[in-house]
């Protein structure tokens, strides 16, 4: 029997007992539907987290602070040391936490550490407002680490850190209040940023909008390149050179070719020098572990549903073999080999598996896309850029393939039974 004929026969046999096939397909449908959805949730959330990680920084940078200087009760007050005792307010830890500031000596020390390519202090600038074309002024802040981050752009381009002109990546919430018709319209426009210097005088600095970004869950504010930050910092210092001598945080770029072990070694190297170095992965690792755990549990439930469905397939095919005993006997009498009979029944199992999984995945994609659209407008509108259900073709194909494999394995027992049937006894069977 030709393979084509075997497949065609298997398909037509599947539809012979419509009710039974439908019920079995339904059982597989539930499993495949769930598995497709949970995979989509996993993919959607990880994609969002990846975008957020990009917003926080490149993979090859450390966020470096002084190691925590929390005084422990009983140690008594720490003696003042003018070279290292400056403290700055920190965003790490509970509100009001301070960390020891990084001074120029610290930066040199960090920069000299083997493996570190460059180190830049994060200069925070407190801007007052932003305005476009002398329109309404809006309160405005700049994300100090934006020079090393990758923004989740809706229009335009990323910041160019080596550019000599002042560049700005505008959060998309500013687009229409500032008077732009669309995100694309804002790109290329020149905006003015208002800033008050330490003496109380007001200044404005002009910058060009190069991109528009989605607001990020983990890093807020606009993005500014080094030139703009420097210009703002100069304006803020009011011409007094010594205004900024210590920094809370520095960003160090390390050799991108470093292996994960090398990164760990570098971290402990910096730790012995008294600095805490963390990559973006470290900061988000916990979040991703939790997400992966949840998706894993959901997938496990879907697989349990599929295992239940597998017994349905076994049952259906065993009944089918029983019902068609004489037909099998006849085919064998007519010279069909046991191997071909086995293939025929295995194919029937696979056809059932394919039907259930293809319909399940199809319905999951249809419903999920609609649900995702509704959720992103309503319940999840606070998380722009989050596509809660992301259907990746490879993972959908993987689900269908997995279900077909499970179906094939379930079909093994009935198919073997059919293949082993003795033609004479089968023909005598009443």
């Amino acid at each position, binding site marked *: *029997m*030709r393979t084509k*004929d075997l497949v065609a*026969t298997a398909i*037509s046999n599947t539809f*012979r007992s419509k009710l039974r096939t439908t019920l079995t397909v339904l059982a597989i449908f539930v499993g495949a539907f769930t598995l497709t959805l949970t995979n989509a949730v996993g993919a959607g959330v990880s994609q969002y987290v990846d975008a957020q990680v990009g917003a926080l920084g490149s993979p090859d940078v450390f966020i470096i602070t002084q190691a925590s200087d929390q005084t422990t009760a009983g140690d008594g007050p720490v003696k003042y040391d003018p070279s290292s005792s400056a403290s700055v307010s920190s965003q790490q830890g509970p509100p009001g936490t301070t960390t020891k500031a990084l001074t120029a000596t610290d930066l040199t020390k960090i920069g000299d550490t083997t493996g570190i390519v460059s180190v830049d202090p994060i200069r925070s600038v407190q801007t007052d407002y932003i305005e476009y074309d002398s329109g309404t002024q809006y309160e405005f802040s700049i994300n100090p680490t934006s020079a090393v981050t990758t923004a989740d752009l809706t229009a335009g381009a990323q910041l160019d850190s080596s550019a000599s002109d002042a560049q700005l990546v505008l959060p998309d919430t500013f687009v229409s209040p500032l008077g732009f018709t669309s995100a694309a319209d804002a790109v290329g426009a020149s905006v003015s940023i208002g800033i008050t210097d330490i003496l109380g005088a007001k200044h404005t600095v002009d910058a060009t909008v190069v991109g528009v970004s989605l607001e990020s869950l983990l890093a807020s504010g606009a993005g500014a390149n080094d030139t703009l930050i420097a210009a703002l910092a100069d304006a803020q210092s009011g011409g007094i050179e010594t205004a900024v001598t210590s920094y809370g945080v520095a960003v160090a770029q390390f050799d991108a070719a470093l292996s994960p072990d090398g990164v760990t070694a570098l971290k402990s190297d910096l730790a012995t020098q008294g600095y805490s170095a963390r990559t973006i992965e470290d900061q988000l690792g916990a979040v991703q572990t939790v997400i992966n755990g949840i998706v894993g549990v959901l997938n496990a439930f879907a697989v349990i549903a599929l295992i239940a469905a597998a017994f349905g397939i076994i049952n259906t095919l065993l009944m089918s073999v029983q019902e068609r005993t*004489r*037909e099998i*006997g*006849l*085919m064998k*009498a*007519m*010279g*069909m*080999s046991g191997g*071909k009979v086995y293939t025929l029944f295995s194919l029937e199992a696979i056809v059932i598996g394919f039907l259930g999984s293809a319909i399940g995945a199809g319905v999951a994609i249809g419903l999920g896309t609609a649900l995702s659209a509704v959720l992103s407008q309503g319940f999840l509108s606070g998380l722009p850029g989050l596509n809660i259900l992301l259907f990746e073709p490879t993972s959908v194909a993987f689900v269908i393939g997995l279900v077909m494999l499970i179906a094939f394995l379930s079909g093994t027992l009935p198919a073997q039974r059919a293949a082993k049937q*003795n*033609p*004479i006894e089968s*023909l005598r069977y009443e």
Partner: protein
Amino acid sequence: MDSEWVIDAQGLEKSYGSGASRFDALKGVSVQIAPGETVAIVGKSGSGKSTLMHLLALLDAPDKGTLQVAGNDAKSLSKRAVNELRNKEFGFVFQQFFLTPNVSVLENVILPLKIAGLGGKERRRRGMEVLEQLELADKAGNKATTLSGGQKQRVVIGRALVNSPRVIFADEPTGNLDTATGAVVEDILFELNRSQGINLVIVTHDEELAARCDRQIYIRDGLIVSRTAGTHKTGAHAAEAAIPASSTDTLTVAGGAA
């Protein structure tokens, strides 16, 4: 024809079960079938006549004895070769129709061709040819379940015929039919024998049907009790089949021994 005999079976024995429940279905049976011959295997139920047919048709292997089909020793044939032999050289007609329901008449008829691995066009052509021959061409598209008993058995004959076999094995071919329809089916079978020289091996307990065959082999309790020498009804056919007189004698001798 590469052999004097289409089927040459010597001293076939077959038993089922073991110990106290052991049942000897055949206790040493020799049968030879010449090209173009029609043979009836007659006996009551439980006599072993069906078992004999199954052995001759290579559906089962004997415990003892030798079986040659078209000059090949059945034992030396591989499983694959046996399957191919059954598929190409044998046709089967059973008391029950064993038609696949919900599938068209044509699909039922071409099943052996499908198993043989023939292409779709060729299958259709040969299937329609056979259906025309059996005056069922207009029913080709009908579902097998919608046919009458006689039509169903004609479809079954069509299925047995579609591979242009050398031998058609028929197990109680008219057992399920009323006398008139049975007679029509019998006529078709004997007409095939006459016009195409296809051997018929008919298992029956119907004396009238047995009488229409060239030769009758009577079986009781696993042994041949009597057999008749070949008396061809048509002289033309006897000449065409060219059975040497000596062969027929051998048969008689063998029958006497059993």
